[in-house]
């Protein structure tokens, strides 16, 4: 399934929801009493009885609710649909469910506060419900500034320079930052994977840390990492661009009409059956569009052209902040 979709779910008895689904996995959480269950039940009612349910749904694709304990069979019969899953489904954190979601021909809206470490969902696609009278919409739980530093309530304002820069990966992304800060006071380390960033932060309590991870798949860890940033806002900053590959594309180093089109509207190009996350998609685009040039991209070994100062400057400009330039 490709594209982003406006959804409107309403009924005459006083409730209307309007929101846009942009990727294959959307997570809805937030405070209790904001209408999550009501939205799910309206979709479920409409799925059962259509317009005769009294619920109206406007969307270019069918909106359906996963209601059966026999969810695998129910899901097997769905295609090109937006599938809503309520928090009561315990299987939501199973590997079987994750396998069914990844590379699915459907988009998923998951009402859950579960971590879901086996699903690659974006920090940008975690929402809470905002209400104004009878109207409800989905609002991103986490905001970011123009250098991709994320926060929930208050912007972190580190007061001291950073000693450590930690990347989630140990390959091309790490190699880029390691080369960039070789001659500086900033030490570059790798957590290894996105799931190990929290453990890494635990081992470096008290250090002045700049964290850079791929936002496109960092959803499972965002709440705890950003909570730590809020608590330790004087010494920690968290930067979550879509992915390292997205940074390279966005820097303008790869001159291509395809790159420009993809960056302008990624939703219109990412097929959920081929790519389980936008991180995977941007990696593919970078690889294909840079092939045969000095910027030819390989995950395991970063081309030297990216490490040249004037080229690296263009990448760093996207995430620059105190002593990280």
């Amino acid at each position: 399934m490709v594209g982003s979709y406006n959804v409107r779910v309403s009924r005459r008895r006083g409730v209307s929801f309007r929101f846009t689904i942009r990727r294959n996995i959307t997570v809805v959480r937030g405070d209790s009493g904001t209408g999550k269950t009501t939205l799910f039940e309206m979709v479920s009612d409409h799925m059962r009885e259509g317009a005769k349910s009294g619920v109206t749904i406007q969307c270019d694709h069918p909106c359906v609710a996963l209601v059966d304990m026999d969810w695998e069979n129910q899901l097997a019969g769905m295609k090109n649909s937006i599938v809503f899953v309520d928090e009561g489904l315990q299987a939501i954190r199973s590997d079987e469910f994750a396998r069914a979601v990844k590379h699915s021909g459907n988009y998923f809206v998951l009402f859950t506060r579960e971590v879901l470490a086996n699903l690659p969902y974006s920090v940008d696609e975690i929402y809470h419900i905002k209400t104004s009278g009878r109207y409800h919409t989905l609002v991103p739980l986490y905001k970011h500034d123009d250098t991709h530093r994320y926060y929930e309530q208050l912007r972190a304002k580190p007061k001291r320079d950073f000693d450590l820069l930690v990347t989630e990966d140990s390959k091309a992304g790490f190699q880029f930052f390691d080369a960039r800060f070789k001659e500086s006071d900033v030490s570059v380390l790798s957590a290894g994977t996105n799931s190990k960033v929290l453990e890494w932060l635990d081992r470096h309590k008290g250090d002045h840390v700049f964290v850079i991870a791929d936002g496109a798949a960092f959803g499972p860890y965002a709440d705890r990492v950003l909570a730590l940033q809020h608590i330790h806002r004087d010494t920690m900053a968290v930067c979550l661009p879509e992915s390292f590959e997205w940074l390279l594309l966005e820097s303008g180093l790869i001159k291509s009409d395809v790159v420009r089109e993809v960056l302008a509207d990624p939703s219109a190009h990412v097929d959920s059956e081929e790519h389980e996350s936008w991180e995977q998609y941007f990696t593919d685009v970078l690889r294909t569009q840079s092939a045969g040039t000095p910027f030819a991209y390989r995950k395991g070994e970063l081309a030297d052209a990216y490490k040249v100062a004037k080229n690296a400057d263009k990448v760093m400009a996207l995430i620059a902040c105190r002593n990280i330039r």
Partner: protein
Amino acid sequence: MLNVYFGDMPDAIYNTALYFRNVYQDAWITDSMSREIILDVDKSTVVSANLIESPVLGPISPVMLSGGVKTLLLIKHDKKQVFNASTCGDNCAKWILQLAEKRKLVINLHHVMDFGPDDFKIKVLNSGVIAHNMSELIRESIPYL
């Protein structure tokens, strides 16, 4: 004191809304603390055991209360069970702390609830460690979530 078990807990009631629908008692709704909880979390007023006035949904029955409120009422009144408190938003956290003031309360969590900026005492049953603030609680959760 509040005791938290992070992660899979087979004996815990996971689907608290479904369980609530089949077990709740009238007195649970009209109890004075329950009225406060329903007003604070769902912004709704208890009229009677079977009627609650919601500003968004209008007159509703107890089964239409939010998942978080249902879990809080279960925690308060059904003391023999352990409940999945990841059905509760952060706006329920203060009520969980209050319910744990006078008894040993065990809840199951599949995420780290925000218990606020003030110090507290929460025992993480997975490790036996007592966390005194959110930074410690987050760090204790790392191996289990």
